[in-house]
């Protein structure tokens, strides 16, 4: 249990449900104290990985180590990990305080001590007044915090969170994101956080694993994934990207292979921009969308590619009347990311679909 041990080590982890391979040879190390996110589209196996780590499912193959100890065959109650369930799974017949004290109760800790510790845990999520209520008398955000207090009061080494903010509205979500991060920093425990919201993952995580089809597509810090997406899939799934396929890359960049450029790295101007390492291409504005903080401009390049640029909403902005105007779209060579040749499994419609999503 030294600090050099990773909190979690997955080796060749595989889970099959009949003909479906939900998790496909996943190798992963998560450091102690890390805020680690698993990001991926629906059905990509994130929940299954979490359930394997928690012990609710038995892997078809592979091992799970917790601080160097093999826990693959251990029951959930024998693992030092706790889960915050997506539906919170609070016990409806118990008060909020009893819910939080439950983990201590089944560990045989006396009534006085467990009440005291449960109260402290409730206070840490700012619910000290709610101890006597039933879960049904709480709002979604409050239930979420009770679930968090219940899972952290037993001081697990690793906390697993399965889309814990999925049921909350946007405002509350953003507020809870800040709180989650704060709690994680205060407790210093490892968080493994599942989400399909890329923005949430980018905001919160130290590192992110992008899942698709039960495999990790790319692993890295938020900046890594955003600035250097390794594949078409990641470029499309994490943020929005303009994808240049082989032919367009030849025409526009003067070299083969697939490339991607983030919308905010594209500039739209009436005159061709010149400068060191700056390239540009002519096109026609097809759509100007007002976003509040920014403006999204969709341009059909003469080279036969539709690109999206994101401009700050400042005084130099283009007005909506600019639709149909002839413009130049320019970018800096350094902002063009070369994508690894797409493996056949990830190429195709899904990446295209993801790429065109705002």
């Amino acid at each position, binding site marked *: 249990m030294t600090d050099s041990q990773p909190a979690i080590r997955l080796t060749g982890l595989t889970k099959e449900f009949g003909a479906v391979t939900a998790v496909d040879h996943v190798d992963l190390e998560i450091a102690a104290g890390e805020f680690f996110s698993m990001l991926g589209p629906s059905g990509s196996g994130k929940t299954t990985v979490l359930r394997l780590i*928690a*012990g*609710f499912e038995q892997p078809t193959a592979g091992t799970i180590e917790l601080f160097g100890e093999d826990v693959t065959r251990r*029951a*959930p*109650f024998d693992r030092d*990990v*706790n*889960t915050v*369930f997506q*539906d919170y*799974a*609070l*016990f*409806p*017949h118990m008060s909020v305080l009893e819910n939080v004290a*439950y*983990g201590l*109760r*089944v*560990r045989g800790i006396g009534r006085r001590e467990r009440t005291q510790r449960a109260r402290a845990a409730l206070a840490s999520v700012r619910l000290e007044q709610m101890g006597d209520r039933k879960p049904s008398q709480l709002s979604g955000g409050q239930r979420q915090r009770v679930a968090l207090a*219940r*899972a952290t009061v*037993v001081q697990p080494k690793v906390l697993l969170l399965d889309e814990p903010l999925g049921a909350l509205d946007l405002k509350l979500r953003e507020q809870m994101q800040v709180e989650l991060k704060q709690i994680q920093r205060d407790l210093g425990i490892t968080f493994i956080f599942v989400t399909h919201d890329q923005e949430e993952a980018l905001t919160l995580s130290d590192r992110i694993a992008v899942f698709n089809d039960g495999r990790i597509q790319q692993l890295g810090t938020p900046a890594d994934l955003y600035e250097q997406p390794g594949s078409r899939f990641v470029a499309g799934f994490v943020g929005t990207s303009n994808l240049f396929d082989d032919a367009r890359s030849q025409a526009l960049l003067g070299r083969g292979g697939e490339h991607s450029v983030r919308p905010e790295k594209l500039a739209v101007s009436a005159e061709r921009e010149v400068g060191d390492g700056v390239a540009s291409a002519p096109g026609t504005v097809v759509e100007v969308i007002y976003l509040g903080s920014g403006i999204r401009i969709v341009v059909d390049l003469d080279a036969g590619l539709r690109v999206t640029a994101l401009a700050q909403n400042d005084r130099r902005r283009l007005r909506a009347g600019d639709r149909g105007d002839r413009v130049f779209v320019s970018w800096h060579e350094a902002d063009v990311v070369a994508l690894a040749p797409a493996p056949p499994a990830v190429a195709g419609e899904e990446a295209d679909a993801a790429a065109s999503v705002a």
Partner: protein
Amino acid sequence: MSQALVESRPRRTAMRAGSAFLTTHPRTRLALLLAAPLFWLVVVYIVALALLLVTAFWSVDSFTGVITTEFTLDNIIEVVTGSLYQTVTLRTLGVALAVTLIDVVLALPIAFYMAKVASPRMQRVLVILVLTPLWASYLVKAYAWRSVLSQDGILEWLLAPFGGHTPGYGLPATIITLSYLWLPYVILPIYAGLERVPDSLLEASGDLGGKTWPTLRLVVFPLILPAIIAGTIFSFALSLGDYITVNIVGGTNQMLGNLVYTNVGAANNLPLASAIALIPIVIIFGYLFLVRRTGALDNL
């Protein structure tokens, strides 16, 4: 365009007007909805019960056998103080409690297996298996047990090599047979109750360190208690009123139902029969009153 819109709007027919009225008058809607079942309940059930109650305070002329509709407490006093009635009441109560206990003990693991362990396919098969005995006649099943329990029956044959014997006909046989008869009625509500306990609650308990037994005791049991009580109401009430099984496998033992039966038939004393019939009714009402607070009645 706007013309088409107007025409595509549904026309105001009498039906629609009626529906609109009902939608905005929930009380009227409720009254109409409940009219038929309420009528049934009032006429058939309450009136019958009231008649029973009234009859218990009448008497029978011992010469003519004609019912005298004069108020008397004699029947009630006899039923409450007579040692025969006390003994039979206690015996009936004992049988009903034993049957209920046995059924709950048997039903819990079966229902748990059905709801939480078996695969969905197996689950359907098991529900059907539990229901199948209900398709056979009560009498057939009771006589089947009579044959099983007889001195040269299958139970004797099975137990003899181990030095055991069939209990023969008597109260144990009655309890066994009644337990068998009412078991499905106890399994099904408990199964339904367990179905409503989300798996994630069991997982959450295990996740927090709860082993199997604490999980069952602290999470599952409290959540299905209303369902268990709903099941016990069936086995308890059905056992209290039974008189056929005890006739078939009970030897010479009598239960309250037998006393009612003989007083209606052979003794032709309907008022006394009514007074006896009030005993299980009072017991059941007492039981319902006790369990009402647990919310079990919502599960029926």
